């Protein structure tokens, strides 16, 4: 950097018009400081984000072992991934998880945010209580929920027993396991979405409600005609975030159900983990990662465009 600066100054002195205008406008002395401040970020992003992202793409077309030694295999990994029945199963499971998550958890934070906003006092209390599960490490909450779901003598079975419903094998039954896991996830995560909605509700000017009131609109009419249209951009944003997050579901099936029963909770990320760290097949695992990047990238692109437009 220092060398370039010096050369540049001399060059300008000798041939004042040899550089384009934009080149001369850059103040090279300031650039040294600017890049010294940026250097740590450029290094960590380079080594621990940009390089790995690039390598995921390269690895997808390579045979790689644990030490990073590699040889080109063309589309072999992609072909093996697509012909593996697990590909269809895992993505179908991811889709089902996403649909369940939306149907079970999407509207809860919206409704709760509206109700919390109506509270005269104690807003902070409710916010904190609903937020607490989001700070709990997943391993710990899984230990507790596994006990709640215990088939014999578990709390949930005793509870539904009061309604004369026979005991269920919550985590061992193919039909129930996805919903059981999604209940844990909804409990664990709705609190952070709630905060987004509470913030969005605070942005609605009180005048709008006053005007509607003068027109004689009932409280529920006000919710429909003012609150919902105003929340609409936030709702689209949280919808996409939720789908992206749920499509990456890993820790719950990995620790709690090991992908089972059968293949009911086999998810794309769980397959990536197994191909890489159980089978040592980093190339195939990277091909799977690439499919994840492409599929979620489409979702993310939509989301980020939306987010930047909103904040701009």
């Amino acid at each position, binding site marked *: 950097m220092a060398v370039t600066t010096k050369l540049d100054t001399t060059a300008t002195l000798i041939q004042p018009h040899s550089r384009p205008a934009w080149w001369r406008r850059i103040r090279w002395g300031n650039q040294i400081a*600017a890049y010294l*401040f*940026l250097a*740590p*970020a450029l290094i960590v*992003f380079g*080594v*621990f*984000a*940009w*390089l*790995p*992202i690039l*390598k*995921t793409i390269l*690895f997808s077309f390579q045979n*790689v072992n644990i030490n*990073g030694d590699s040889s080109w295999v063309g589309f072999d990994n992609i072909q093996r991934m697509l012909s593996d029945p697990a590909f269809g199963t895992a993505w179908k499971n991811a889709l089902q998880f996403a649909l369940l998550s939306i149907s079970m958890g999407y509207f809860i934070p919206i409704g*709760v945010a509206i*109700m919390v*906003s*109506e509270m*005269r006092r104690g*807003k*902070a209390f*409710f916010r*904190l209580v*609903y937020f*607490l*599960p989001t700070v*709990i*490490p*997943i*391993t*710990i909450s899984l*230990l*507790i929920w596994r*006990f*709640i779901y215990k088939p014999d*003598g*578990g*709390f949930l079975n005793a509870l539904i027993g009061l309604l004369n419903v026979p005991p269920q094998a919550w985590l061992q039954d193919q039909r129930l396991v996805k919903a059981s896991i999604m209940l844990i996830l909804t*409990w664990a995560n709705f*609190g952070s979405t709630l905060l*987004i909605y*509470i*913030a969005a509700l605070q942005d609605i000017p*009180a005048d709008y*409600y006053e005007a509607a*009131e003068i027109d004689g609109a009932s*409280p529920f009419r006000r*919710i429909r005609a*003012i609150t919902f249209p105003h929340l609409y951009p936030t709702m689209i944003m949280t919808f996409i975030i*939720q789908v992206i997050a749920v499509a990456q579901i890993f820790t719950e099936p990995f620790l709690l159900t090991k992908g089972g029963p059968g293949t009911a909770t086999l998810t794309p990320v769980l397959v990536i983990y197994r191909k*890489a760290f159980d089978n040592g097949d*980093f190339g195939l695992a*990277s091909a799977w*990662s690439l499919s994840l990047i492409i599929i*979620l990238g489409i979702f993310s692109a939509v989301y*980020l465009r939306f987010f930047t437009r909103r904040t701009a």
Partner: protein
Amino acid sequence: METWDRGILTRLEMRTPTGRSIFLLFLGLLLVLSITVLFPFLFAFTAGLKTNLEIYSSGLQIFPTNPQWSTYSMVWTKYSFLTYFKNSFFLVGGGLVCQLTVTTLAAYSLARLKPFAGRLIMGGFMITLMIPSIAYLIPLYTTLVKLPILNISLLNSYWGLWLPYSVNAFGILIMKIFFESIPDDLYDAAKVDGASPLQIFWSITLPLARGIIIVLIIVGFIALWKDFLLPLLVLPNADLQPITVRLWYMLNASTVSAPSLNEQMAASFLALLPPIIVAVTLQRYLQRGLSVGAVKG
């Protein structure tokens, strides 16, 4: 606390029977939901107090007949909580120091020092938000096993986590927006006094950014304390693992000495205390921090 002006219901309506009943319905629903949400915490706490026999057939019986407080102290020593809590705090603390150093320096440069190709670099940072980090986990792992150029392995070293944790594009974005909002006059005055960029950064910018840095610390603390997969892969040596990783494997030992359920629950409850204490004591920063922080998903 925030002053309540009005919600969807007006003050006047709050005095009518309809308004009152809507309000009470909302309050009731919120209280029921609060109990449901808090239930697993209470459940783990009381289950940890039950006896070995009581817990297997407890069903709806939530409170123990004869609380066994000794289980908690026994679990504390048996599972070396002190060691693993220390590991966790060291891991999270170091991660936060690295993350904040890298993030604030980069954001300051992008916001104030006008680096050449700054927009391009910012775009490069933002790309990492669009690509789920789990998708490049494998090359990240091989990078950590054999660091480029230096050819050293970061396995079983906290640096193997601190450095990847320093990648925080969201933090850079938030800090950059904040630094851009500081009036230019402040900087110009300092420059006239002959302060260097580092002095300006350290003695003017950082003190002003204290609030937002606290927010980033809370968000970061919770996120790093929760992390499971990366510590599991980077720290195969059990003695170095954080509590969240180690506890799962200790409590799921498939040997004959597998811990009983009451021990499991007591240990779980102890392990969830630190993040809860952080959340409760710093809750006034939560709304502000997490309505931005949660956006990352």
